[in-house]
């Protein structure tokens, strides 16, 4: 089997020394993490490794020797390095050597304790893979593999070869904390972060975040306690609350904030990412909301809006009246039953009348109401949009009423007709067996059934037309509301932080790796450079999407059409007994 | 490779006209044929025709022939599948019209079928079931391509109504130049000869078979405190479910220790349910619904008496299966049923409630008095009657005879169509045959036979890859005599 040695690029120019890292027997690969420089005392090296192993729970070992011939060929060094193998026994023992200049590398893996031939050290083929320690350390491999924590370093259950490499590097962060320039007992060479000084602000923020979180969490728990008060559970309130999208949105945001500011530390990187995504989403939301607020409150836009609203409502009502009058005539040359047509038309006209008077009654207060509503934009754009959706729902309440009346009437007729049609053919619906049975009816049953059937058949077009027209109106309103909800959902669910990360630091979200051949010569080890493949944007969105508000029904087109045909009511919100399909 | 293994194509047909000798007496080893079974009905659809095709194919493969099966796609199952012993099944993407039978335009299947026949180097086309449009299409195209044809009829038809008049005319056309016809019973032969106006000499009777090892008795599974009558059939009018709905209340009122077990599904299940409700027999009449073939035996062994109420039946496999399980069989005297079992194993009745009740009462009386032979004995008698190996042997003889016959050239074929099928139909189908021939010529011009790949036989050269029967190859090569059925 080809032995794979993962070697950090930053160590390529380090002085000669010992290779420290982890040996993965399943993949027969050695992950080199650092180079220990001369001089050192073997006991101290071992101590250091033991410390790191305890902290990171990764099986650290001295894997072999590293020899960098910069100036003069030191023959003695070679022998010395070979001799080290006896002190730090490892199987196989790697001997990595870089010739002068960066062109020539040599690598040998020696098995010492081969039982068959103990004297002749057998050699394996070695493949040298360079990796960027920083990028590998920071990146997160997707899809995340579960590496069991409770197991000891040496017996990793993980099967994915790359996942082990990534995991090893990520866990040995402790090793990298030790400063290169520290005059410790052991000198190490590895990737070095820019240091604590460079990120004072970050440190400050980190320090400050604890108390801030605590404070905010207290506040939020207070709010949620208030919202959980028993007063809100009185009869009509939960019902109204479940129908108003504003309330849903507010609760959703509250949940977000409690999660973000919870004092518990994020357990996994995914959770951390989620928190960050939520925070960014909330922040963006509020920022957009404030922009909207400032736009609204400049140059008396609210007043203009309020002035425009009443005429618009009037206009809509007038249009509806015209529509009804058209329906009460002979619309599109359809054969309507005149008597029923008149009754229905007048009934709806009266409704519009009621509605207009209600709007006019409200008109003096509208500006004030709008002003207050506008203030809510400081809670976020989504809240403002939700309120807008609710206002639309309230303003088109008459359309909703028409729709419900029409649908109920139509539904009644359809069901009546379907059962009478069975009677007409001498059949009946057997409820127990869920099928149509033949049945012998009495003469009077037949007569009354057929009479009713005839009447319903001739009245059906009238009701169907009313139903159709008001359903179309209703669908229009629902579509507008749906668009608003879509926008709100977009802001709610888009993982902005992850997307930003992907844009600016593509290596942080890895979908895999690709290898570039650096050198391929006969007799020399194959040298590869490992580069990180960034995660595609679609996968980012898919993986880190935040949960949506979840108050909208999911209709398939087929079921929607079926419901429309049978006159069942469709709601923009999810019904209690609704089954998700 | 495959064809040299199959052997039929390479050598010119040396006209060995072997007489179709009776089933068991002598078997002379004959050359291997390359046979294509065509029917709309095959697994995963379940039924008598399906299992017939499968079992026959398996036995023919065992005897060293090359067999492929062509049927239409069932749902997601399309393309080529391999079954046991390298039995190759083509599921063609043709539209199903009614009752699993494909729609036919007579021509649309030619390209596909020709391709298959050529690439498999088929020498004999064996179509099954007169309900299958694809089977008739294949006969028609095979004659156009100059291949030998055999047809197996599995069903009976009346002559009384309009639909049967039409279908019989079509059958006349379809079978008018078919080399040989196989019927499953003598009644079926008489019926087919009348329907298709055939010469009875080219109609052979080869019964169906059952695998006796699948239907073994198990007397401990039944409770002897009560008498159980088992019915296993599709619940449709033709199977006499209406009669059953009359028998159940009659007998249940008369015998309090009588139970019914009814396996099968169908549109007439409702009337059985209604009867059960009406007479409150829920604890005595069990409706099992659709049964898989492998479960049939477990149902059969629970009963003492098997009741068959069919109104028409060419060859009733169900009663053989039941008798093989050691049950006393009571059946209607219709179609080929009287030929199937000897008198002492079956009680034949007229197809009426009264007569069937009488027959059942006789069986119940015998059961109670212990006059019936033990199930094991019945099984031992029945298992010698019908075996697939025997069927395959006899079918092989038909192939042998057919392969020696000459295929009518086009002009003779047209003459025969016109003279045999009546003036109007004859001319119409002669015209269609000409069109079919032109289409074939066109297809041969588009993709000549020479560029069509020869299919690899899944059993390997001379069946060398069959692991189940390692001795098969040897047997074929050594021209040994196969065993007669166990």
């Amino acid at each position: 089997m080809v032995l794979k040695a993962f070697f950090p690029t930053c160590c390529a120019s380090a002085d000669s020394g010992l290779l420290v890292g982890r040996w993965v027997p399943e993949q027969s690969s050695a992950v080199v993490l650092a180079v220990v420089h001369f001089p050192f005392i073997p006991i101290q090296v071992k101590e250091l490794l033991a410390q790191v192993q305890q902290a990171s729970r990764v099986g650290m070992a001295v894997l072999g020797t590293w020899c960098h011939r910069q100036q003069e060929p030191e023959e003695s060094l070679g022998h010395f390095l070979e001799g080290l193998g006896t002190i730090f026994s490892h199987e196989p023992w790697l001997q990595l050597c870089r010739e002068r200049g960066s062109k020539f590398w040599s690598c040998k893996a020696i098995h010492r304790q081969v039982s068959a031939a103990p004297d002749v050290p057998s050699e394996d083929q070695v493949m040298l893979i360079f990796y960027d320690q920083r990028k590998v350390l920071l990146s997160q491999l997707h899809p995340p593999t579960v590496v069991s924590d409770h197991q000891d370093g040496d017996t990793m259950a993980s099967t994915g070869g790359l996942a082990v490499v990534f995991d090893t590097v990520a866990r040995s962060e402790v090793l990298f904390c030790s400063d290169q320039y520290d005059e410790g007992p052991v000198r190490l060479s590895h990737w070095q972060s820019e240091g604590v000084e460079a990120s004072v602000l970050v440190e400050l923020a980190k320090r400050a975040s604890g108390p801030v979180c605590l404070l905010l969490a207290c506040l939020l728990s207070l709010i949620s306690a208030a919202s959980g008060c028993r007063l809100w559970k009185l009869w009509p309130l939960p019902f109204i609350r479940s129908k108003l999208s504003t309330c849903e949105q507010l609760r959703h945001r509250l949940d977000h904030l409690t999660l973000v500011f919870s004092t518990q530390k994020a357990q996994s990187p995914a959770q951390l990412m989620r928190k960050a995504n939520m925070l960014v989403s909330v922040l963006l939301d509020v920022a957009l909301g404030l922009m909207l607020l400032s736009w609204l409150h400049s140059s008396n836009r609210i007043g203009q809006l309020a002035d425009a609203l009443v005429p618009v409502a009037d206009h809509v009502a007038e249009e509806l009246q015209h529509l009804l009058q058209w329906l009460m005539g002979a619309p599109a040359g359809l054969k309507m039953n005149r008597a029923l047509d008149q009754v229905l038309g007048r009934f709806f006209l009266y409704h519009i009348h009621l509605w207009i008077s209600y709007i006019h009654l409200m008109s003096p207060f509208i500006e004030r109401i709008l002003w207050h509503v506008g203030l809510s934009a400081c809670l976020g754009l989504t809240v403002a949009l939700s309120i807008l959706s609710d206002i639309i729902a309230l303003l088109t309440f008459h359309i909703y009423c028409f729709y419900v009346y029409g649908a109920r009437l139509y539904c009644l007729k359809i069901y009546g007709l379907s059962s009478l049609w069975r009677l007409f053919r001498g059949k009946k619906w057997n409820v127990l067996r869920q099928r149509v049975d033949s049945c012998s009816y009495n003469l009077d049953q037949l007569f009354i059934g057929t009479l009713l059937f005839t009447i319903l058949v001739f009245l059906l077009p009238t009701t169907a037309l009313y139903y159709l027209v008001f359903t179309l109106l209703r669908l229009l309103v629902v579509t507008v509301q749906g668009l608003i909800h879509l926008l709100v959902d977009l802001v709610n669910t888009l993982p902005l932080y992850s997307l930003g990360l992907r844009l600016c630091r593509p290596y942080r979200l890895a979908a895999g790796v690709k290898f570039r051949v650096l050198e391929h010569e006969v007799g020399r080890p194959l040298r590869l450079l490992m580069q990180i493949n960034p995660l595609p944007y679609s996968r980012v969105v898919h993986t880190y999407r935040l949960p949506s508000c979840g108050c909208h029904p999911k209709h398939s087109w087929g079921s929607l059409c079926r419901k429309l045909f049978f006159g069942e009511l469709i709601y923009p919100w999810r019904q209690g007994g609704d089954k998700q399909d | 490779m495959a064809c040299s293994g199959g052997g039929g194509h390479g050598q010119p047909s040396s006209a060995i006209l072997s007489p179709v000798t009776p089933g068991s007496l002598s078997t002379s080893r004959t050359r291997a044929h390359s046979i294509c079974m065509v029917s709309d009905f095959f697994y995963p659809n379940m039924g008598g025709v399906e299992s017939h095709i499968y079992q026959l194919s398996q036995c023919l493969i065992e005897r060293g022939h090359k067999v492929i099966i062509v049927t239409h796609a069932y749902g997601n199952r399309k393309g080529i599948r391999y079954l046991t012993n390298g039995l190759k099944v083509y599921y063609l993407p043709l539209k199903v019209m009614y009752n699993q039978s494909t729609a036919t335009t007579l021509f649309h299947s030619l390209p596909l079928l020709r391709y298959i026949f050529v690439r498999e180097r088929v020498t004999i086309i064996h179509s099954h079931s007169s309900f299958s449009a694809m089977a008739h299409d294949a006969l028609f195209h095979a004659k156009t391509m100059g291949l030998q044809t055999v047809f197996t009829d599995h069903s009976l038809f009346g002559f009384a109504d309009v639909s049967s008049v039409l279908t019989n005319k079509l059958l006349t056309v379809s079978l008018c130049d078919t080399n040989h016809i196989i019927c499953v019973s003598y009644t079926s032969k008489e019926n087919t000869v009348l329907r298709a106006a055939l010469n009875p000499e080219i109609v052979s009777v080869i019964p169906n078979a059952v695998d006796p090892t699948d239907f073994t008795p198990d007397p401990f599974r039944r409770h002897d405190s009560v008498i159980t009558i088992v019915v296993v059939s599709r619940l449709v009018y033709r199977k006499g479910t209406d009669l059953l709905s009359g028998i159940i209340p009659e007998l249940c009122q008369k015998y309090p220790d009588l139970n019914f077990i009814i396996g099968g599904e169908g549109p007439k299940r409702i009337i059985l349910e209604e009867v059960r409700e009406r007479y409150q027999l829920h604890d005595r009449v069990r409706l099992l619904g659709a049964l898989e073939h492998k479960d049939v035996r477990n149902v059969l062994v629970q009963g003492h008496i098997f009741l068959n109420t069919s109104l028409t039946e060419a060859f009733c496999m169900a009663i053989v299966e039941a008798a093989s399980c050691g049950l006393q069989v009571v059946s209607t005297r219709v179609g080929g049923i009287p030929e199937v079992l000897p008198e002492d194993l079956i009680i034949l009745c007229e197809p009426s409630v009264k007569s069937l009740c009488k027959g059942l009462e006789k069986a119940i009386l015998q059961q109670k008095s212990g006059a019936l032979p033990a199930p094991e004995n019945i099984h031992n008698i029945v298992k010698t009657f019908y075996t697939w190996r025997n069927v395959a042997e006899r079918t092989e003889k038909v192939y042998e005879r057919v392969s020696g016959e000459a295929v009518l050239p086009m002009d003779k074929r047209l003459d025969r169509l016109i003279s045999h099928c009546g003036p109007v139909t004859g001319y119409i189908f002669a015209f269609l045959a000409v069109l079919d021939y032109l289409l074939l010529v066109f297809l041969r011009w588009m993709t000549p036979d020479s560029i069509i790949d020869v299919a690899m036989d899944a059993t390997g050269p001379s069946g060398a890859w069959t692991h189940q029967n390692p001795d098969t190859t040897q047997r074929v090569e050594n021209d040994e005599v196969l065993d007669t059925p166990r």
Partner: protein
Amino acid sequence: MCAQSITSTKEAKWQKVLYERQPFPDNYVDRRFLEELRKNIYARKYQYWAVVFESSVVIQQLCSVCVFVVIWWYMDEGLLAPHWLFGTGLASSLMGYVLFDLIDGGEGRKKSGRTRWADLKSALVFVAFTYGFSPVLKTLTESVSTDTIYAMSVFMLLGHLIFFDYGANAAIVSSTLSLNMAIFASVCLASRLPRSVHAFVMVTFAIQIFALWPMLQKKLKACTPRSYVGVTMLFAFSALGGLLSISAVGAILFALLLVSISCLCPFYLIRLQLFKENIHGPWDEAEIKEDLSRFLS
């Protein structure tokens, strides 16, 4: 037929059995081949006058439809006062009701167990519902064009004639559907009449002629065939007379139709029987001759 004792003679005799291996080739044709072929065993001999008598049910139903249409035409034209029709209908219904019980001496009533109170209730339901709905019926089809209504009525009345239970045992027969179609047609036609009283009377008349009259006919035919023939003739002539008063051509055509159904069709039926050649044999699908519906009712 197959059950012949197995003879162990030297020269084996062919048997029509499958379970034995016989020393004959599979395609052997015995002398007994097709010996069970029968021809025309179910062909029935028809008596001309019996067929004519049976055809009277069709005549009756045709005449019912004709009478109904004629009466509707009179009402539509205003030649017939609704009160008069209602009175006549009521009187004839009462007469029929009495006759219905008298014919078989009340045996049918005893068998069905239907009380007079139930009859009265049914009658009240009919009248009350029809009366209650008659204004609705009147305005029901105002906006629908008259041609549509006519087409619908013709279609429904034809359906009534097709699905009517003439005594044939066929799948198409459905007396429920037939009656419902007639009622539908009558409601359609009634809605064209000038006033709601007219509609009410028309629908009542439809019930009488399409629902009650066939019941009486059936009983008449079963108990007193002679008087049934007389009633049929009378009914046919009155229908013809009614039609004559509207259109002479129509009356002639209708008379030709009646004659052809009652005289020519039976004649042809009997003539065509001579050409019958029906093959029967053991392959035939057995017929169930018993009435199995008794187990379910």
